[in-house]
Each structure stands twice: as structure tokens, then as C-alpha cells.
């Protein structure tokens, strides 16, 4: 059996947990699937954007939407480099994460979507709308994960595709940050804010999972601990719950140690070091750690975020906190503008050390 996080993922609109307001909205959209606008889900990681979008599609197309298969598609860039992209699809939808492609995402968007759009058009001509069962084949849904990391170019290309093929394609964009989406895309989509569950909701969901898996929970305080450490990220919370349950023979006590992802622990240790040992040699050692985090493909922006907020907690005086957050914002921007994250991460650490020395 799969992980609990997949096992207990709601599969239909009726079973969605938390934020009933949103569920109502989606249900009203599902009433008239013909009218489905392009959608833009936004909200923090692990809030359930994907789950909601799949549930919506399930209510439109039926459970065939979960018959996933995966293809590797090849693209050729103008400079003749070959790119490979995983495309997950069901008979009714298609899912891509073009941000893996870096600067070449525009080509992927253009090529792939054009292909899909035209393929569907052919379908149209061969079978009349009524015979093919009406709704199901009228359009295909394209889910774009991490749409906020699309380049401007790709977004502009997407905007054109949206208009050109709006008859046969519906887009569902998922993103964490709305700020990097260009205005024309925002104005063409129905914006769906997906808030993360609050601590109470998280605890409720966790205890439900624990109950069905026959995990004995000594006290809710341990669940509270988990949900607080996960900060509304339900995915992380359930994964933590499962690994802790297995670690403790399916019996969670209040004293059971909290399991955090190793990279978070590493960053916390680094934070400690930055505060305690402010020297050049300390920076050098941090660099080795940073490089290993990067080698494990932890995004640099996540590293700086974790680091900054850990520092904000660690640092006592308000003056120092002001310094930390100011420099975090500066180096966070430079991360987006530059192309070698290591300079900026190490630069941030050095800045913070100086700020604390002052």
C-alpha cells in the first residue's frame, strides 16, 4: 500500500477536508462543467491545491481521471539541446511541471500545448459532440504545477495559448506565489485561494488518519506538536505522523521525538552555528553544508527562507532581527536575479554574522 499521505488523500469533492468555503465554490463550478473557466489555484505548499483540483476534475470526468500514466517527452531547444520532461496524463487531463526545464520552459509550453490543442481538434471532427458523450471530450484539462516558476516568456506564450485554444483546453495552474504571475494570466483565470489548514484542522485530520491506521495516540499534544512544526503543510504533517508512528511501534507518546526532514535539521544546526561562532572558518564550513543541500536539490529559496526564519527565532534583540530580515530580503531577491545560488547564500550568512557583531 502506498504512503498514508496518498492513501488518505481525498479523491472527490465530497470528501475534501478543511476550508468548506472553497469546497462549495468548486462544487458550484462542477455543476456546469461546460462553463469551467481557466483556474489558478494559489496557496502555500501542502495546502491541498492539487488534491482540490483533482477532485474537481473527478467530479467532472469521473474516476477515470485517476488512471494515470506517464510519458517521457523529448524537446529540442533552439541550441539543439535535448530536454526530457515527464508528462503525467489520464484520458482527460495532462499534467506537467515545466519549471524543471529552467529557461527552456517556453518551448515546452508552446510545443506541448499546441500539440494537445490540435490533437483534440481532430477528435472533434471525427466524432460529433453528442455521440462522444458530451462533456467528457469537449476539452482536455492541462494542469501546470509550480506555475509561478515559469519564466515571463513562458507565461506570455501561455497567455496566447489560453486565448487561441480556449475551446478545447482548460488550464489549471497551481502556484505558491501570485506575485510572479503576469497580469494577463491572472485576469484570464478564476483565482482560487487555497489556505492551509490551521492547527486545529490539522490535528483533526491527523487524528482521523491515526485512528484508521490503528495508531494509539497517548495525548493530542503530540499531534499538536507535529502540526505546529509543519506549519500548515498537510503533506509534511501526515508524512511525519507516519514515520513517527512506525518509529514508535504504532503508539505515539507525548515524549516521542519529533522527526523532521534531515535538511531542516541541518539548516537549524547551521543557524546555531551562525549565531554562536561568527568567524571566517565558520563561513567556510557553512559553505560545505550549503553545497550539500544544493546537491540534494533543496531549492536555494527554500534554504534562505528556512534559514531566515530560524534566525529570526534564534536572535534575541529586535535590532538584530531587523538586520536579519532586511538582508534576507536583499539576498532573496539576488537569488532570483543571479544564477549561482552559493554566492548569495554565503553572502547572506556573512552579512548576518556582521549584523550580529555590530
Amino acid at each position, binding site marked *: 500500500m502506498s504512503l498514508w499521505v496518498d492513501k488518505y488523500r481525498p479523491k472527490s469533492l465530497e470528501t475534501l477536508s478543511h476550508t468548506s468555503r472553497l469546497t462549495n465554490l468548486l462544487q458550484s463550478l462542477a455543476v456546469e462543467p461546460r462553463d469551467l473557466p481557466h483556474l489558478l489555484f494559489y496557496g502555500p505548499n501542502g495546502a491541498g491545491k492539487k488534491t482540490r483540483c483533482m477532485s474537481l476534475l473527478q467530479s467532472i470526468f469521473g474516476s477515470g481521471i485517476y488512471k494515470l500514466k506517464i510519458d517521457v517527452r523529448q524537446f529540442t531547444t533552439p541550441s539543439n539541446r535535448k530536454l526530457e520532461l515527464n508528462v503525467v496524463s489520464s484520458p482527460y487531463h495532462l499534467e506537467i511541471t515545466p519549471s524543471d526545464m529552467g529557461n527552456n520552459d517556453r518551448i515546452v509550453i508552446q510545443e506541448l500545448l499546441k500539440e494537445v490543442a490540435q490533437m483534440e481538434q481532430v477528435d472533434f471532427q471525427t466524432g460529433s459532440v453528442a455521440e462522444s458523450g458530451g462533456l467528457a471530450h469537449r476539452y482536455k484539462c492541462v494542469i501546470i504545477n509550480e506555475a509561478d516558476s515559469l519564466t515571463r516568456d513562458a507565461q506570455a506564450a501561455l497567455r496566447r495559448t489560453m486565448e487561441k485554444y480556449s475551446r478545447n483546453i482548460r488550464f489549471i495552474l497551481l502556484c505558491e506565489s501570485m506575485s510572479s504571475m503576469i497580469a494577463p494570466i491572472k485576469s484570464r483565470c478564476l483565482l482560487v485561494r487555497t489556505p492551509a489548514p490551521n492547527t486545529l484542522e490539522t490535528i483533526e485530520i491527523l487524528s482521523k488518519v491515526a485512528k484508521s491506521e490503528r495508531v494509539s495516540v497517548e495525548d493530542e499534544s503530540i499531534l499538536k506538536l507535529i502540526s505546529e512544526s509543519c506549519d500548515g503543510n498537510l503533506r509534511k504533517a501526515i508524512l511525519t505522523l507516519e514515520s513517527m508512528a512506525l518509529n514508535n511501534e504504532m503508539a505515539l507518546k507525548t515524549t516521542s521525538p519529533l522527526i523532521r526532514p534531515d535538511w531542516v535539521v541541518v539548516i537549524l544546526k547551521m543557524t546555531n552555528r551562525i549565531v554562536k561562532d561568527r568567524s571566517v572558518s565558520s563561513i567556510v564550513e557553512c559553505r560545505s553544508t550549503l553545497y550539500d543541500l544544493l546537491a540534494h536539490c533543496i531549492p536555494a529559496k527554500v534554504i534562505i527562507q528556512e534559514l531566515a526564519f530560524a534566525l529570526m527565532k534564534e536572535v534575541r534583540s529586535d535590532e538584530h532581527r531587523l538586520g536579519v530580515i532586511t538582508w534576507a*530580503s536583499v539576498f532573496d531577491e539576488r537569488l532570483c536575479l543571479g544564477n549561482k545560488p552559493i554566492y548569495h547564500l554565503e553572502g547572506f550568512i556573512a552579512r548576518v554574522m556582521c549584523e550580529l557583531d555590530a
Partner: protein
Amino acid sequence: MSDGFFAKRQKVTHAQSLSIEDSKPWVEKYRPKKLEDVTAQDHAVTVLRKTLKSANLPHMLFYGPPGTGKTSTILALTKELYGPNLTKSRVLELNASDERGIAIVRDKIKSFARLTVSKPSASDLENYPCPPYKIIILDEADSMTSDAQSALRRTMENYSNVTRFCLICNYVTRIIDPLASRCSKFRFKPLDSSNAISRLKYVASQESLKFDDGVLEKVLDISQGDLRRAIMLLQSSSKLVKHLDPPLITSLAVDELAGTVPNELIDTLTTKIASMDFNDIMSCVASLERSGWSGAAVTNQLHEYYINNDQFATRFKNAVSWIIFDSDSKLTNGGNEHIQLANLAIRVANLYRKGM
């Protein structure tokens, strides 16, 4: 074949015809049909009406903020000039969604421009002026590349006997000088709120919408004088509440759709900032983030709050607007929302602390 099949089929076709009616964007549906219908652009309309009489049209350049009726005006004008039959052969409309590189200017625009005008039918001649030239409308012309623009210049000159151009743009400065100097310019002012409200009311009554008090004002407020955005917003919120009982549009729904943060949340944040407790501020920002509010929207609304608030001194406003500018630019560059928002809040709080 079974009855069931036919029943299904009927249902589908029925639903289809409905949907076409339904899904037509209101922006198109309520576009002004005649020049007189264009609201609040008296200057442009008067001039254009004169040309309508003389049937002699210069090249035109419409500029102004979005949603002020530029496209509507030119479309209405062409309708009045040519009537429904002739419009198709006489008018070419290209907007930003079409590729408009230099190749398009060379091929598509040029080949249309050099066509000789077709003969209008007798009935058209009776009802419409049908002047002997074609019109090419280039919507969002400011997004054309400058080499495409300069290629256009030649085309404009060469075929001016049979073709008139109408360029539409938001920023007149982005049109290269040689092009701008060949056109008579019309500036479209932002709509004043009374005009816009009456238009929204008209749409709402036509669609028999039910709404809370102040919703239309809210819609207008959010769209900042952009009538198109306002109408689109109205349409999507009506769609949202269609299946509710009663289908009442609330300002909360409008807020949600537009992605704006409810004022209560902004108020909480600003009080926290004023209290200068960094811990409180951090947790407040974290909860905003957790609820998924967009950082850009929060920044915008904080800007409104601080700048349009008379209780603050100018010096303070200066400093705040600098901080907000900084955060906004970092966000636009792709910065992390949480970090940037926290930075914004803490730095404003620090201004309080410095006693500004």
C-alpha cells in the same frame, strides 16, 4: 436506438445553446454599439463624429489606461462607417494575442493594406457612409517590437490612399515617434466613478443580478477605473453565486475573486505593526501567508492604507512608500512572499520605533 440516447442528445444540444448565450463574455455583450453609447470620452467622440460626417478619416492613435473604451470606440466607429456586412472585408483587427513580429507586419498587414477596396452593395450605401478605404486596427500596439513598428511606417505611407490605421495603446511613449507623428492622437481619460457606476448598474440590471449594498462600488474600487475589469469581475462573481441560494453577490465574494485581502486582515496587520512587537508581527505575517493571501495584494493594500491615510505625517509616508516600493520590486523579481512581506512589516514597524 434507445430513447435514452435521444433524451441525452436533446439535453446536450439544449444545454449547448444555453451555454453559448451564457458564456459570451459580458465585456463583448455590453460593448457600446454606437459612438453615442461610449461613455465619458466626449472629446474623442465629438471629433470622430465629425469625421463620420465628412467620411474622411486620418490615421489614429488612441491611448489611455486600460478599460477606458478605446477598442469599443473604434469598433463602434467601424460599425457606423460600414455596417455589419461590409465590416468583415474592410476591417482587420489584430491584438496582442496574435503574433505581431516584423514578419506579420510584412505579410499579413501589408497584404491587407494593399488590397483595393471592395464595392459596397447598394443597401449598405444607403444606410452607411461606406468611405472608400479600409481600416486596420492594431490593438495593444505598444507591445509591438520597434522594428515591427518601423516596418509599419512604410506600409502606412504607401497605402494611405486605401487604408487607414488605428493604433491603440496604453503608453503613448512606447510608440516610436515616426509612427506617432503620422497619427492624430486621442487621449482617453480614466472613467470618473459616476459614469462607470451607471454603466455597471445598467449591466447588473440587464443581467438581473442581486447584490449587497456597496458591491458595485467595491468592484469599481478594485478595478481602479478599468471598466473592462469591473465588468469581468461582475460576471465571474455572478457565476460563482449562481448556484447559491439566494444568488446574492457579497463584497466578500468579490474580494475573494479579485484576490484582494479583506480589510479586517489588513487592519489587524497594521495595528500589529503600529504596536511594534516584532514577534506579533512575524506571527501575523505567517498567518497571512498560511491563508494563502498573495504578497503582492497585501503590499498593494498596505500602500493604499498608508498613503491615503491623513493621520500620518508626510515624512512617514515618504519612508513607507520607499519601503513598499522596495518590497514590490523584489516581489516582482520573484522574491519569496513570506520573507518580503515580513521584511516590509518589520521595517515599517521600525519606522514607528524611530518615532516617525
